[in-house]
């Protein structure tokens, strides 16, 4: 149908979008935020001790980006993020496929999964430190715990959502259970799995950063806490900004990869075809 009009409120004339492109509006949004922020600090509504001027923050962000130490720590964070994602996916995806495919496993496993995933991984911080120390492994353990469940659940649901008509088509070609699994169930679960991993990638980054803030020895989070202890809010917020941007980059990288690798996922979701 005419997508042109679909998003307009009722009664509004079907206006034609012209002029300001979307990205420009986005930039305007960012600028407005910075201005409001600046005014809030300037007027004294928020103390400069706790919230820096945006200009100062941006300048510090530049400094941080030029600081090899900061970049090294970013590397640590990214490595922990990547490793947790890779390890969690490597275990959770096959497990989720099995649990979704075999009905006898599905029910008992989903009880365990729902119980385990409702525990915030930060609750395990003390235990994790005991078991894995303060370094990389501890971060990894907590991040894996946090993202294991969404990946697993998505894989499970993806399998269960496989189109029965497709399975019948497969059977009509004389395929056995194994072939149905590899040729139909897997590819039809792939978009759900990709979604799970994409969601997990954001969570993993946030958990890694949070453990760094709460108690770890390397990573961007420790840089932020160092500046926090030195009472340099400008650096602190520059660090927060950069982590946020890192998250945005990661998100878009995943979205892009998903589109490139699983083009049918979008097409399927998009239309009734």
């Amino acid at each position, binding site marked *: 149908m005419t997508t042109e009009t679909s998003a307009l409120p009722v009664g509004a004339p079907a206006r034609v979008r012209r002029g300001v492109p979307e990205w420009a509006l986005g930039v305007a949004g960012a600028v407005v935020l910075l201005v409001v922020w600046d005014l809030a600090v300037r007027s004294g509504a928020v103390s400069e001790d706790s919230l820096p001027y945006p200009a100062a923050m941006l300048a510090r962000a530049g400094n941080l980006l030029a600081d090899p130490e900061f970049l090294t720590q970013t590397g640590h964070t990214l490595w922990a993020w990547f490793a947790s994602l890779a390890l969690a996916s490597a275990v959770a995806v096959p497990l989720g496929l099995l649990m979704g495919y075999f009905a006898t496993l599905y029910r008992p496993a989903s009880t365990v999964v729902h119980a385990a995933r409702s525990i915030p991984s930060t609750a395990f911080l003390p235990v994790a430190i005991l078991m894995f120390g303060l370094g990389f492994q501890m971060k990894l353990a907590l991040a894996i715990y946090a993202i294991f469940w969404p990946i697993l659940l998505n894989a499970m649901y993806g399998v269960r959502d496989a*189109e029965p*008509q*497709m399975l*019948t*088509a497969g*059977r*009509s*070609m*004389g*395929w056995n259970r194994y*072939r149905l699994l590899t*040729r*139909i169930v897997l*590819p*039809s679960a*792939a978009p759900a799995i990709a979604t799970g991993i994409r969601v997990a990638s954001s969570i993993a980054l946030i958990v890694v950063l949070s453990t760094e803030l709460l108690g770890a020895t390397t990573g961007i989070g420790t840089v932020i806490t160092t500046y926090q202890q030195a009472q340099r809010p400008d650096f602190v917020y520059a660090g927060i900004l950069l982590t946020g941007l890192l998250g945005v980059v990661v998100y878009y990288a995943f979205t892009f990869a998903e589109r490139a690798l*699983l*083009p*049918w996922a979008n*097409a*399927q979701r998009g*239309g*009734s*075809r």
Partner: protein
Amino acid sequence: MTATIGGEKTMTSAVLEVAGLGKSYRSRAGDVPAVRSITFDVAPGEFVSVVGPSGCGKTTLMMCIAGLLPLTTGAVTFRGTPLDAPRDGVAVVFQDYSRSLFPWLTVAKNVALPLKDRKVPRKQVRSRVAHALEMVGLGHAADLHPWQLSGGMQQRVAIARGLVVEPEVLIMDEPFASVDAQTRTSLEDLLLRIWAETGTTVLFVTHDIDEAVYLSDRVVVLSQGPSTVVADIPIGLDRPRDQVATKQTALFGELRGEVYSLVMASEKRTSLAGRSDPE
């Protein structure tokens, strides 16, 4: 051509014999009979359509004949041997192309799928896929994905996938129900052309009485479910058929009217107001 109404099989030259086929679905509330007892034969190269009220068990019947569902009673014989699992000589085309084509494969790969496990040499696979796609007029679309095609084109891919195994019997369950009227007429003519070219036996389920009469050598009319065969009508229209000329003939009108009234009579409630078709 053999018209067997509820009787024994009368020919041994039939490629497909359906004898007393009955099928019940198991459910919590006990067994639900979908097909009571159906008997008919299909001769080699014949084009047979099956029509009947909504929910009378046409899909169930086709799935049983294709070996995709176990029978409850009766037997299906294909070239003299019992058919109880998907077989090489039988191909199936489903109604809902969007759910029977695999969106992650290209058109060519979708069509090549049924050849995969049959030790057909690569070269031959390629030429057979190309030939099947040519037949349905999609030679140019081999490298596209199904979701890049229109509904009619997708259904043509599904047909090509059925043809690529060079089946003796092609079973089609309402293949054209989800495409628009104009595309349907084109697909009908396409199907007739391919049928004539390949000599395949076609067993065709449809809701559309015009379509059944226009295409077939015989139309089998089923009763309201659990179904039995109500009538088995030979269609004596000349071939080749034509969308305008054939449909203008008096015979077409008569046959159409005959099937129409048989189907209507076999529906328990024909009044629209009271209908609550479960489809």
